[in-house]
């Protein structure tokens, strides 16, 4: 486990030196917000009409920006050849998975927070003191997204030419019902101020996070093997 942590720290350190991934994720999430803003411009949404759209807009942004991050998390290592260096180390292959989960979680959460800020700015939205429950859902939903996405990203990195398209193609059907829907529902409920109501969804997210981690722990050896 300490090795997984070391990988995560290394990833975050290199990321903050180059800022490639975080920067492109941030810009992308900004663009998505801009796109949503102009898409709804015609209706000049009142805050009441905006209400049901808040959580879908947020999560669509989180997921698509997050997918950018997942894209490079393994492909950078693979293209540089350093993935082989990691695989030569005397540790379980799942340590690589856990390391990547930690670094992806950290970076994608960071982007999520910025996306939230962009959202508040563009739609001049007021969370009315419900920000904390929303953040709880964001933390859990993003975690579930990252554990499934890191696994899929490990699979897709092997497809040299089409890995860019393969991640969304493989990931979206998997997370539709297991991550996207519960996250959106839970956020909507949290926005209504009742986090207690959202407990069934949060429970689903928790269960799926555990399941994806278990699958990855069992199968990640096969994903990285050559």
């Amino acid at each position, binding site marked *: 486990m*300490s*090795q997984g942590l*070391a*990988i995560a720290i*290394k990833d975050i*350190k*290199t990321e903050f*030196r*180059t800022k490639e991934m975080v920067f492109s994720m941030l810009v992308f999430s900004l663009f998505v917000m801009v796109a949503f803003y102009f898409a709804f411009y015609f209706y000049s949404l009142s805050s009441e009409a905006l209400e049901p759209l808040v959580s879908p807009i947020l999560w669509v942004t989180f997921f698509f920006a997050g997918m950018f991050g997942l894209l490079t998390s393994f492909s950078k290592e693979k293209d*540089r*050849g*350093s993935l*082989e*260096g*990691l*695989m*030569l*180390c*005397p*540790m*379980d292959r799942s340590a690589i998975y856990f390391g990547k989960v930690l670094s992806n979680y950290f970076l994608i959460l960071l982007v999520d927070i910025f996306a939230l800020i962009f959202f508040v700015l563009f739609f001049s939205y007021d969370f009315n003191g419900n920000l904390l429950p929303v953040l709880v859902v964001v933390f859990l939903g993003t975690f579930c997204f990252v554990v499934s996405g890191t696994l899929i990203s490990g699979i897709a990195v092997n497809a040299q030419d089409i890995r860019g398209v393969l991640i969304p193609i493989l990931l979206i059907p998997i997370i539709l019902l297991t991550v996207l829907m519960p996250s959106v529902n839970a956020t909507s409920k949290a926005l209504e101020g009742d986090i207690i109501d959202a407990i069934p969804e949060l429970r689903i997210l928790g269960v799926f996070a555990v399941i994806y981690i278990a699958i990855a722990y069992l199968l990640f050896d096969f994903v990285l*093997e*050559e």
Partner: protein
Amino acid sequence: MPAIEIKNLQKRFGRKKVLCDLNLEAESGEFLVMFGPNGAGKTTLIKILSTLSRPSSGNVIINGFDIKEESMEVRSTIGVLSHNPFLYDDLTLKENLIFYSRMYKLKKDEKTLKTLADEVGLLHRMNDRVGQFSRGMKQRAAVARVILHNPPVLLLDEPYTGLDYKAWEMLTDILRKFHEEGKTIFLITHNVELGHRIGERLAILVNGKVAFECEKKNMDIEAFKGKYHGLMGAQK
């Protein structure tokens, strides 16, 4: 006890057989050089020995550990150097070494890391990013990474690719030194002259099989070259 013991090793990729019935042994402390034309399966062999790839059938024992059953132990007894240094360009040499020593669960203090860097002649560049290094320096840095955990068996896959003369000489000196220290060295290359010069025992891999094996002292360079070129024609 032989340090590397390969028995009836086979590797198939789908339909294609890359290695077929490969048998090879290297005694502990031996300097074994394997030659082979492109497509003979050299890199596949190294990948299997270093537990990156799983054999389709057959057995490989490295330092007494089975690569299928005890891959963890195998990984901690081998050092692998290829033409790719496996280092992170955005980290300094020191950070790279610290990262890899964490990966091997080693506690390395400042001083040991410095001696290590000194050994490969990079002490003055400890705090520079590896991305700024020249090809030869990167390869020397990679040597420092390889010997971090002091492995008794070294697997080298074309480590000379792209090196200039100076780096070339330096790497050869380092390999000689390791050999004197009693490490087992398994070098793969297609450069006959170089291999013949530094190796102790020579083997030729053609079509996934060991086609020829000899002690260096029994065969001079010209005779060996003739043999190699003769066998090369057989490669499909």
